[in-house]
């Protein structure tokens, strides 16, 4: 009997914990990609970013489909997919990690909170550790995340035939996701 009561207490404790954390998510986050060089504008937008974040633990995931990046120039989009990202072989890119200072964010109070991210970025089938900073803005109780960081194209084994001459060897990734 005692055991039953004890396990009930433990269970209710777990339930309370589960209840106390909230998962924010979006399917329409935005990630921009910019690898322009003085010679050529190489930029794209992806409006189909899938992202989830847990407020208590700071756990965060961004997933994108490479083919969902839209370029102004169709030919550039085709090259991006076929020659650089090989998106038929590697259709997804993903960041998994943590907001390391999530405890400083008050999700109940509107405002802007600077945050740091620490995690693993997987692009083109290659994983790399990434740390970067950004801002969580709370507006009307809904959080949004913005931030940008640079990736070295070569670190991810991306070796399209034009690299070095036409496109920058560093690409800037900017994130802007509004969560529900």
């Amino acid at each position, binding site marked *: 009997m005692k055991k039953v009561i004890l396990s009930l207490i433990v269970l209710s404790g777990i339930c309370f914990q589960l209840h106390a954390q909230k998962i924010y998510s979006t*399917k329409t986050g935005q990630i921009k990609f910019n690898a322009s060089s003085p010679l050529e504008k190489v930029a794209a937008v992806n*409006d*189909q970013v899938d992202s989830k974040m847990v407020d208590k633990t700071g756990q965060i995931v961004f997933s994108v*489909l490479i083919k*969902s990046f839209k370029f102004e*120039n169709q030919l550039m989009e085709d090259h991006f997919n076929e020659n650089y990202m090989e998106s038929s072989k590697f259709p*997804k890119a993903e960041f998994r990690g943590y907001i390391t200072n999530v405890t400083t964010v008050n999700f109940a109070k509107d405002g802007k909170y600077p945050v740091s991210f620490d995690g693993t970025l997987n692009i083109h089938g290659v994983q790399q550790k990434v740390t970067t900073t950004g801002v969580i803005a709370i507006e009307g109780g809904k959080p949004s995340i913005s931030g940008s960081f640079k990736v070295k194209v070569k670190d991810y084994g991306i070796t399209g035939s034009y690299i070095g001459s036409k496109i920058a060897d560093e690409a800037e990734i900017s994130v802007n996701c509004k969560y529900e």
Partner: protein
Amino acid sequence: MKKKIIWGLVIVVVLGVVNIWYYVFQYSKTHHRDVANEVAMLVTSTQLVKDFQSNEKVANAKYLNKAIEVKGELLQEEKDQSGNITLTLKSGDPFSNIFCTLKPGLPLPVKGSIVVVKGVCTGFLSDVVLNNAIVVKPVE
């Protein structure tokens, strides 16, 4: 005679360069892939999600970057952060639906109706994702 040949060659080369320049920088900027002109595979939303769930690799080979027509019940109509209209079609699995981003400037189907959406399949996250989509028909 020689001069004429040289001039002819110069003209051909110049025209070639102009053509390439036009195709790369002008034509490709204004002409985007349009699913309306493409022949599409027809599939139901339930089948599409099942295919991706049972074997994503095989499903990718079958659907990725192809024009497909998906028939399903409209669950949700929203706008993304760029102002594009997005439609979610029910698949029968509440955790995995069909998520379609429409091309701008299209008339909307009625909520709750069975629709056929034609778009380019870009892959599978938690939903199967379609991009550059058009609504082929809202069927009552």
